[in-house]
């Protein structure tokens, strides 16, 4: 029973709220000897594992630290180029830390605005008139549930494929939004939601659903 996150997209397609709920953190730290038996590549301003996965280090994981020093882009904090450093034998043995790539806020905003036309296309492709647009998007590792209100706001929940009752959960989140975001006089419509009460109540809703199922909410 895992809920990965909740997203709210405004009528005009902008991400106004996101909440990462329960994303398991994966971090592996391991010493390596010369020559490095794992293929690394620099893409999207990150050093990622390109090939040869093992010991919990998977293709796509990001190099986050070398000998305990954090890596930013392809450089260490003191300005040394990590890829150059890994080519030289005198730097070994070396300890590398890998973790799963985290999405930045910018990437989330980007993805949210990408979902918007996808939703519109889906409703246009429909062979029948009055199609609802995407309600569930399924993959092998998660399901995305989307509920669009009559006013055009979209509530999305990303959860494990086995998780049930998520359609109801999206409506519960809508209730919380109506209560704690819209009744807050300092919240202006269409703007990012920064309301502590909303977040706290959402957090406790998600916790209850994970622990004891949707029927107890």
């Amino acid at each position: 029973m895992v809920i990965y996150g909740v997203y709210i997209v405004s009528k005009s397609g902008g991400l106004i709220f996101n909440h990462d709920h329960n994303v398991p953190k994966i971090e592996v730290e391991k010493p390596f000897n010369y020559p490095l038996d794992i293929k690394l590549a620099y893409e999207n301003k990150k050093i990622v594992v390109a090939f040869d996965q093992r010991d919990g280090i998977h293709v796509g994981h990001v190099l986050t630290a070398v000998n305990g020093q954090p890596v930013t882009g392809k450089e260490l904090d003191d300005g040394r180029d990590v890829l150059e450093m890994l080519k030289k034998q005198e730097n070994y043995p070396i300890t590398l830390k890998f973790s799963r790539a985290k999405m930045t806020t910018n990437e989330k905003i980007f993805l949210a605005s990408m979902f918007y036309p996808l939703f519109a296309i889906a409703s246009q492709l429909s062979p029948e008139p009055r199609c609802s647009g995407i309600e569930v998007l399924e993959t092998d590792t998660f399901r995305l549930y989307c509920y669009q209100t009559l006013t055009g706001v979209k509530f999305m929940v990303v959860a494990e494929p086995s998780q049930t009752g998520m359609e109801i959960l999206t409506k519960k989140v809508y209730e919380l939004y109506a209560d704690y975001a819209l009744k807050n006089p300092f919240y202006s419509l269409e703007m990012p939601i920064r309301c502590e009460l909303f977040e706290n109540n959402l957090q406790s809703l998600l916790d209850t659903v994970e622990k004891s199922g949707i029927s107890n909410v």
Partner: protein
Amino acid sequence: MSRNVIKLDAKKVNSELFTLTYGALVSQLLKDYENVEDVNKQLERMGYNMGIRLIEDFLARTGSGRCYDFKDTAEKIQSGFKIFLGITPSITNWSVAGDEFSLCFETNPMSEFVELPDHCLSLKYCNLLPGVLRGACEMVQMEIASWFVQDQLKNDSVTELRVKFIKRLEDAIPAGED
């Protein structure tokens, strides 16, 4: 806070508290603006701003779907009054074209202890309500106009609120709804 054990029956508050708070608001507006017309306008505007938020609360609680005819809308507005003010106005005086109806209030909690003084006989005391209706309907892509034709405060036997359908806001309808 507002939602405890029984979900639909949100936290109740004594209607007198609400009546008095609204009264305080109106009398403050009368102090702030010299002109009664301005107060009417301001009340309508405040109502509009409440309506565009209140509609989400209504939809989230009732889970009601989109209206495809104005009779449906009238009933939903009626149930909205039940939820938020605890009164059930009657729906009467349908126009022949079916695009106009009246809501008649026997009692109105908003003006319960009110008598209009002589210098503000043109004040529309409850002008917040037309604003709320306009804002709420606009958010569900429907343009309406609404105004008072009778008012108990002006010695009419009932308070009558007229609601007129103007048009559907087609370009504002979200994808997957058209």
